């Protein structure tokens, strides 16, 4: 590992440009290591986000060689082509500066999809009994580990074509709540995720599922929402 990496990093806002840096290759080097090396050794003005460095917090996602990835768990050896890396901010989100995007719209859409848990019980009620092997709970298990990194959102063509589209992560969150027997406001939630800005806009291209670093399938969650909303519409409950 003696050679240098040629790393093109996006600098500036939407009107910015790539700037090239030379970074020494190291064993077990991650893309986040590369970005951190640039900021600490070459250019302290480089802006980027990270927190946990172990794939839990979802804050370090970037576009690496054209694909959205979590930089802390992406090894350079896996993605570098001819010792070259191109690192850009996530797509489909406004650029604040360098590799930092404005995530407000992404998280506002979680709220618009009724991603908040609204309880039906009070503190005086007994604990809810949720059988771990029940079909609803297993649907939740398959979708609940989302870390909110925005990779699915940045990878989704429908988000690019339809700015109102809630996106895979928000719809995936809504699907976990639709299956939660303790959650209220289900009719409101179904109405929020239906239609042209919701699950019915999904073309099932599955890029979100292919790119999800937690190996979740927002595509399957969205398909579940399509079935649930269709049933509700046919029953006149939507």
């Amino acid at each position, binding site marked *: 590992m003696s050679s240098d990496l040629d790393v093109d990093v996006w600098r500036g806002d939407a009107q910015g440009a790539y700037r090239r840096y030379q970074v020494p290759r190291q064993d077990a080097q991650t893309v986040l290591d590369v970005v951190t090396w640039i900021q600490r050794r070459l250019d302290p003005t480089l802006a980027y986000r990270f927190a946990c460095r172990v794939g839990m917090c979802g804050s370090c996602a970037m576009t690496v060689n054209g694909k959205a990835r979590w930089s802390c768990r992406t090894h350079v050896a896996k993605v570098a082509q001819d010792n070259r890396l191109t690192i850009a901010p996530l797509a489909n989100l406004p650029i604040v500066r360098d590799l930092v995007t404005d995530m407000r719209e992404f998280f506002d859409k979680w709220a618009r999809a009724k991603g908040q848990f609204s309880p039906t019980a009070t503190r005086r009620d007994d604990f809810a009994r949720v059988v771990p092997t029940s079909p609803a709970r297993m649907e939740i298990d398959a979708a609940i580990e989302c870390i909110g990194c925005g990779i699915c959102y940045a990878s989704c063509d*429908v988000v690019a074509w339809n700015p109102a589209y809630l996106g895979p992560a928000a719809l995936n969150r809504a699907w976990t709540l639709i299956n939660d027997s303790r959650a209220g406001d289900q009719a409101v939630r179904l109405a929020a995720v239906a239609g042209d800005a919701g699950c019915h806009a999904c073309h099932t291209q599955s890029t979100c599922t292919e790119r999800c670093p937690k190996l979740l399938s927002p595509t399957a969650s969205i398909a579940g929402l399509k079935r649930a909303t*269709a049933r509700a519409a046919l029953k006149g409950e939507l």
Partner: protein
Amino acid sequence: MSARSETMLWIAQRATAALLALCVLVHLATMIVAVRGGLTATEILGRTRGNVGWAMFYGVFVLAVAIHAPIGLRTVAGEWLQWRGHAADACCAAIGVLLLALGGLAVAAVTL
């Protein structure tokens, strides 16, 4: 458009897609079988005119197309042309009516 209306459009498009898959297969198979050995327009019309079965089959085919296509065009208009709202909906509905009229005329011409 309300969430319920948009969901009903989605259901209508999926249902007609399933119907069209069947209709297209029957249509293609019929064409291949019917022209074996050569057929003239007169022979075809001789078989289809007055045939209630073919009239119903192609009537359903045309109806499914007239429902399916404008819903898809509405999505294409929104995603590729950024054209959404009442005017886009009305234009796509008009295309549906046009397809129904032209298809209906064609079915009538070969079955009545």
